């Protein structure tokens, strides 16, 4: 194998596939990046067996030559060293040449590295996915949907299924749900698809976080293919595979309250700032609790007490309060996360009692909601 390649294109690609490479893996060859050169271009692959990323650098694009494939071939190079080397090469072009025993030379300007490569035949094959039932989402919408849900996944392994985001596809709609059992985030969107196929799968939160990092902010469509145990995200030059989580996701739809006893409408930004101030004193490790009390004339009081430190109270004028009076305590962190996830200048919060979950929704938008379980005080 011998190629001459644009350094910047190579760096970008290496950076993308590095998202899947883990230094701690039970399969030693997965600490490497697989490089395959054909006349069409160069394909890089990184994988930790949960996530696999394939990045393609075309030989030429928009009439500009990016790679000159002198001799097709392939090799696996130690990801840690290879990624650092390409970043620091002195010239805008790089020559990579594999000799016998996979000894690989990387040359740029007057710099020359030689790296001991590995046999690409030993690199695991990526899952073969039949691309029959594809649905499409614009990149920026996909990123938003991930951002608005993935933060709510569980970080604890007590219920592994909750470390993932539930993706349900039905009736031309994708519904993403994440919950760590203390709060829940839900986001819906119409998808472009020609198939009637419905799905109900759980994608690891970590996979979605990594995916989000390597997607750009364009509105180009991403192809999504779901199989029994894998999901594939496909953009022009990128394949992102993730394992799915085993097991059934709990049915959360029946847990989302449909009625309410107290409805409050507030300005999102203002409310966020009040909660943020109140949480300054909320004790770390003790659930970071703030208390909300409805007052007269549409006023809301937010307060927090930390006996050793001090206390804080602040009143905020709501847009409206309807229904019963209410005193409720909740985690400031969950509230801040939820408010940041919601779009919309005004949000409606619907309560059904001090010990029942409450809902946050943008005022005129039912495509997203956040649910928070309150904190019980004694």
């Amino acid at each position, binding site marked *: 194998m011998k190629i001459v390649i644009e350094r910047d294109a190579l760096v970008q690609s290496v950076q993308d596939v590095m998202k899947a490479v883990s230094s701690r893996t039970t399969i030693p060859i997965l600490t490497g990046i697989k490089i395959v050169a054909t006349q069409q271009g160069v394909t890089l692959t990184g994988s930790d067996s949960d996530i696999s990323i394939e990045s393609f650098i075309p030989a030429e694009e928009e009439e500009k030559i990016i790679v000159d494939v002198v001799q097709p071939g392939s090799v696996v190079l130690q990801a840690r060293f290879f990624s650092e080397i390409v970043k620091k090469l002195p010239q805008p072009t790089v020559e990579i040449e594999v000799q016998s025993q996979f000894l690989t030379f990387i040359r740029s300007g007057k710099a020359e590295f030689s790296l001991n490569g590995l046999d690409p035949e030993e690199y695991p094959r990526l899952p073969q996915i039949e691309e029959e039932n594809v649905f499409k989402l614009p990149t920026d919408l996909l990123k938003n949907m991930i951002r608005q849900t993935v933060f709510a996944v569980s970080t604890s392994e007590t219920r592994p299924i909750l470390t993932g985001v539930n993706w349900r596809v039905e009736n031309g709609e994708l519904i993403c749900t994440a919950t760590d059992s*203390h*709060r829940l985030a839900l986001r819906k969107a119409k998808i472009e698809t020609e198939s009637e196929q419905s799905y109900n799968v759980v994608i690891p939160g970590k996979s979605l976080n990594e995916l989000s990092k390597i997607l750009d902010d364009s509105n180009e469509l991403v192809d999504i293919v779901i199989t029994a145990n894998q999901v594939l995200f496909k953009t022009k030059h990128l394949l992102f595979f993730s394992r799915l989580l085993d097991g059934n996701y709990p049915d*959360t739809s029946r847990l989302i309250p449909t009625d309410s006893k107290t409805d409050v409408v507030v300005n999102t930004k203002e409310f966020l700032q009040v909660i943020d101030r109140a949480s300054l004193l909320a004790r770390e490790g003790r659930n970071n609790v703030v208390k909300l009390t409805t007052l007269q004339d549409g006023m809301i009081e937010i307060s927090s007490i930390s*006996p050793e430190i001090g206390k804080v109270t602040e009143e905020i004028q709501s847009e409206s309060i309807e229904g019963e009076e209410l005193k409720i305590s909740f985690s400031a962190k969950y509230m801040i996360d939820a408010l940041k996830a919601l779009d919309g200048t005004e949000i409606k919060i619907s309560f059904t009692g001090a010990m029942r*979950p409450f809902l946050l929704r943008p005022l005129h938008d039912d495509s997203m909601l956040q649910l928070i*379980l309150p904190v019980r005080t004694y």
Partner: protein
Amino acid sequence: MKSMYPKNGRVIFHVDCNAFYCSCEIARDPSLEGKAVVVAGDPKERRGIVLAANYIAKNDFGIYTTMPLWEAKKKCPHLVILKPDFDLYREMSTKVFNFLATFSPILEPASIDEGYLDITDCYSLGSPLEIAHQIQKGLLETLKIPVSIGIAPNKFLAKMASDMKKPLGITVLRKRDVPKVLWQLPVQSMHGIGEKTAEKLKGIGVFTIGELAKTEKGVLKDLLGIKGVYLQERANGIDHRPVDPEAVLKWKTIGNSTTLSHNVTEEHTLIEVLRRLSDSVSSRMKRKRVVSSTLQITIRYANFQTVTRSKTWLNPFQEQEEIFRYAVQLLKQHWNGDPVRLLGITALDVLDKKESTKQLDLFSFEEDAKDEPLLNAIEQLKRKFGEGIIQPVSELLHKEKSLKEKIRLRYDTKQKKKDGESM
């Protein structure tokens, strides 16, 4: 001045704030001075009861704590009724203790409105009586908080003394005064004897403190356990407990450990030990009404190598099953399989259950929500009759059990310290 102090004894003050909640209210709003004032559950609530009454309300109108508010109003139509403001009381309490600490660093707050002060080495400040006057005057002038002070050679007598003259009393109680002053009093008036203990003592024909003082130690030990021995000593004016500034901090951990009769390598045996330990830790936590979110286990191996490992959970625990489950989890994770000679379980950073919080869970909140109507009812009872009027049966039952537990399982603080260091 040293001559006014005992040669080889201690001088202990018990400082007790008089009608503390009312005093705080009057201190905040001086216009209330000279008026009959009560703090009551909720003045708007028709069925509220009196939580605290100042001395004017008490002495001039015969209003007492727990009296229904309507009755109090009848006795004194111009009665000033205030809603409790616990934040204010806590704040004032801190100021009172800060003031006391300027006299002696050996200060032990015993509750929100009383504390012990050891002034044995304070002869440079004046005689004990002079210091007591300085404290009383100082608190009254700077904070407007009246206090009664008991002066005695130990905590028990100081506490009994401060009770004798209120408000603004200063009472000296010497050990030699005990027969004359205390012995004719009924046992219930003794600090540390509640209704239950008094009932038991009546069963063996002990009605007064004097009778308690003269009862055989063995008899009391059989009846009340180790507590009986202490009570008998107190009835004789003996109390060796030091004034302990750390006392408030002390129960920030609650733990039990046990040395096994032989070195154990079978997991199921260790798990059985953990079950017993978690039972006693849970009982003690319930008795003190505290919860914790961090559990630590101690494993001492046959070669005396000792490890402690802990884990923090999101929500506080108190129940035996939870403690047991967490302890087993820690054991399975950290035990290396070598023979074990000692096992321990400690709940770290315990805090008052009332201060604790529980993050509810989407899949189980209904259980807590079920309590909502009950809690609302309890809330109303408390408003009516004051805190502590109602508590779960389980807590009362555990009080019974825990004494036996104490004897069965050894709780050795020194031991635990050692373990911590060798980590």
